[in-house]
């Protein structure tokens, strides 16, 4: 229901913003017609769905009920949120050029993979080796074979910063 309420608000804001656009010149419809009516449609449709859900009194649960069987014991949603946090840290590491792309990627892959594992010594060693290999392999493939300059990813982020 939360998402539907947000979508209703988005629809109203979009329709309002579109309504304030200048009127059409030299054409019947103009730039504002589509966004305006789409905003109205989004609000109305979200409202209809919200009313239906309210009347039915049911909603898809947002929390996962999964219990990890062969890994660490914590809620599924907690695991997802921690992964999101690790991904955010990885992006910041790229953005602020903390370490090279290959190393930060290897560290990120290692952290996420090992987080969901049994953390036995053998697995830690294998995952560390695999993550390093993948990190450098990705850098090699993109820079040497596909000619995508990954270093520009960091340069671009500096420009944004």
């Amino acid at each position, binding site marked *: 229901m939360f998402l539907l309420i947000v979508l209703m608000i988005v629809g109203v804001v979009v329709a309002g913003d579109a309504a304030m656009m200048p009127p059409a010149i030299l054409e019947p419809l103009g730039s504002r017609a589509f966004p305006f009516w789409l905003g109205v449609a989004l609000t109305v449709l979200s409202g209809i769905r919200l009313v239906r859900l309210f009347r039915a009194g049911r909603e898809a649960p947002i929390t996962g009920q999964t219990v990890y069987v062969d890994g660490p014991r914590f809620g599924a949603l907690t*695991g997802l949120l921690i992964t999101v946090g690790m991904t955010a840290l990885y992006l910041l590491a790229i953005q602020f050029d903390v370490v090279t792309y290959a190393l930060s990627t290897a560290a990120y892959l290692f952290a996420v993979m090992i987080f969901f594992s049994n953390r036995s010594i053998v697995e830690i060693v294998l995952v560390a080796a695999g993550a390093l290999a993948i990190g450098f392999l*990705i850098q090699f493939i993109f820079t040497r074979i596909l000619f995508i300059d990954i270093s520009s990813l960091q340069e671009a982020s500096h420009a944004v910063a």
Partner: protein
Amino acid sequence: MPLLDAFVAMFQPMTFFYLVMGVFVGIVAGAIPGVSGAMVIALTLPLTFFMESTNALVLLVSMYVGSTSGGLISATLMRMPGTPAALMTILDGFPMAKKGQPGRALGFGIMASFVGGLVSWFFLATLSPPLSEIAVRFGPFEIFSISLVALMLISAISQGSLVAGLISGALGALVASVGVDDASGLVRLTFGFEDLDAGFGLLPVLLGVLVLSQVAQDFLMINVPAEKLATSARDMFMRGQDVFAQRWNLLRSSLIGTWIGILPGIGSTTAAIASYTTAQSFSRRSEEFGTGCEDGIVAAETANNAAVNGALVPLITLGIPGSVIDVILLGALIVHNLTPGPLLFQNSPEAAYGIIAAALVANFVMFGLMMFLTPYIARLIDIPKRFILPPIIVFCIIGSFSEANRFFDVWVMFGFGALGFLMQRANLPNGPFIIAFILTPIAEVNLRSGLMISDGSFWPLVTHPLSAVFLLLAVATALWPIYQVRRARSAMNLASNQEVATDE
């Protein structure tokens, strides 16, 4: 003979390499539950930026063919559809495998996939060129109307809820409206953020809504083990009499799959459901369906593969995607500066005929790879998701960045990933979002140019015969689910009344 030339081009070493690679990667991706064909094709799209356009299309089409077939493996051995299209295969594939005949179940599925691909390819090759010649004559009102049909069809079949599909579609359409309006030069819905002036890029939106949202869903189930049956290549080779016994089922399911695939917006999953239920009603062994009946496996697998080629027909003739994967192929055409739609055959025949030729050769390659490698590919399903999902995120980051070399797009992708995840949790399908994101600019541009031609009159929408037919189809599509719900309700009321009467 442009088609013959295209076939010759398929056997150039690099092109053939991409084709085999595409089919193989597609099969593996389709076989691993949680890694769908759409996901892997979206991830591959940025890798094709630097490839020759025909090779890029060959790679993506081959992945499409491979991933649709690969879903069969996990559906049969794990009771988990690797792709949504393999949903109906589970019903008979898994029970047959459980009875100790996994090779036979897979063999029937592979044979059916191959035949479905062959029959539908015939329609793809024969219908597409003449259809494109007719479609060249479409005016802006006709193109607007057919875009509307596609949008309505997508919404109508979205998880059985028209409103949910329409919300998702409206949201996708709004996202497509952000940025500079090419017709007037006005900036729309950016709320002062200059980074949004260019609008949202295709890849950040695709990768976010389709791939990252699914990755997030998969993280919720990351360490849940699934039962998996062992298999071997034994019994996978079908005898002639087995194939002959299925001849009518194969033909009927191929035609159903092709036809449903041709309808814009309806993909392989619906084709498999329709074909399965039809086969059940026609079969002499209808009571055996769901218990390991080969008729069910054949019907489902023939139709879902036939729908792949069927869906390519509106894509290359009208520029209207037949499924979510076709949206990505449409994006690939745009990325490679090819004009999707009727002009593709005129302006870039090598690409149009290349897609057609690749679909057939990929079908043969799929058959060969599946027959000989399925037992080995089945072992890849065992790789824990914790080793698959993190590299996918890394590829998503590079993919979203590589389109415009903007770090902003990476954050945009994560934003859309969160949106896609929340939409799935709220039972809003993400397919209509993506298709509306692609189709809305086409619909808007054509409606506005049509209205300029007609001095602001909407009448040509109904006075132009083809446009009127398309509009009627759109209205019928919108009303059909409402009719179905009412009919189901009245049937339920009738049944409950009868129960009360019996009790009394």
